[in-house]
């Protein structure tokens, strides 16, 4: 009986072990790293370039660079920030191809949004809200948009984002705060999102304290 092909994420070894194995010429170890991070890098490239074929080229170029840098690569805990940093640099250095109309983030989402249980009107409403939010994210400056994309799309925490963008964690916090404040200003016109318009500070200070209805999301530890 023919052995089944191992799954993409079947290799349970950590990044450090896989890097050391790939350094010794073990190509399956390098393939395991590729399968582990290709989707995240693809999504990051897609969010920046908005071109799926360019995003795939970024994935290939990122791992080609990683393979060439295996000898001097010293992953402490995770290879992910290093790979994402290379991918971000490649994405921003890539010039948009001619005769290619870049789509927005919403178009880059493609047909993956599907929910058979929701009604068509609800789906249309959700799609419209998503379009508004992603267009607002698109309107941010590149460094603020990158922080938002890395956190909300790629799921990186603030420390990892700081490694990717090569700046202190405090700067990442500040950029994220600024980006969310800009989003709050732009999205306040849509009451269905539950975001109240910005209030004058003096009025804010004189207002009575309202009970907090929104609780912080609890992370799975």
């Amino acid at each position, binding site marked *: 009986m023919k052995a089944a092909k191992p799954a993409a994420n079947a290799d349970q070894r950590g990044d450090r072990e896989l890097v050391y194995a790939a350094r010794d010429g073990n*190509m399956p170890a*390098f393939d395991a790293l*590729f*399968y582990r991070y*290709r*989707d995240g890098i*693809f*999504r990051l490239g*897609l*969010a920046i370039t908005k071109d799926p074929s360019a*995003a*795939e080229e970024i*994935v*290939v*170029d990122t*791992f*080609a660079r990683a*393979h*060439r840098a295996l000898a001097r690569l010293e992953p402490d805990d995770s290879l992910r920030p290093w790979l994402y940093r290379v991918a971000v640099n490649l994405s921003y250095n890539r010039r948009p191809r001619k005769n290619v109309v870049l789509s927005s*983030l919403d178009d*880059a*989402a493609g047909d*993956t*949004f599907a929910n058979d249980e929701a009604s068509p009107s609800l789906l249309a409403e959700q799609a419209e*809200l*998503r379009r508004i*939010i*992603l267009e607002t*994210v698109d309107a941010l400056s590149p460094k603020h948009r990158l922080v*938002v*994309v890395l956190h*909300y*799309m790629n*799921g990186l*925490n*603030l420390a990892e984002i700081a490694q990717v963008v090569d700046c202190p964690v405090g700067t990442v*916090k*500040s950029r*994220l*705060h600024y980006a*969310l404040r800009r*989003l*709050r200003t732009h999205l306040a016109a849509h009451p269905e*999102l*539950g*975001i*109240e318009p910005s*209030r004058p*500070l003096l009025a*804010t*200070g004189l*207002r009575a*304290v*309202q009970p*907090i*209805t*929104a*609780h*912080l*999301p609890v992370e799975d530890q």
Partner: protein
Amino acid sequence: MRLFGRGCSFVERTTTAVAGGLSSWERSDVEKHASACAECADALRDAVAIDVALTRAFAPLRSRRTMLAPGRVRVALGPAPEERSSRWLRAPAVFARLAEVSVALGVVLFAVSTSVEAPSGAVAPQPHSVIREYFRSQPPTEDIDYFRWLRLQPAERAGAAVDLVRLPVGGRFDVEQVETVINPTSTPR
């Protein structure tokens, strides 16, 4: 003191708390502060709302995948480098390369030396040779070469008879015909 400082200094921490950048006790500290600060309470509520909206908006993008295979990376890397052989196994290749270089250098030097002409002034005058002069003074045996040679001979050597011959004008010679005297030494052998 913050320049143009306005509002509560805890506001930025609300965003950090929502983004998961605080520890549990720091987060509870922010919550406790927000319960007493209206500005931070609003900021926290809005941050949570925006966080939820962004999470939902990016959900379809988070499910985007690619079917790229690692073979594409190998193609991009090019052929695998050859394994390093020992120094003694590489020695013949080094000598062969040296031989190639020396042959190529010789060909280039030969081509350069043959293509460059020596300056005319540098030609040394050949020494006088009686034998060469003798053969040079001998008329050629072929007719056309002989007449050409004869025409190029000095007048005193050719007997000065050539200039005396004129073409006839009006059916008769304008000068008296003289008998051509050929130098006996110039006759063909």
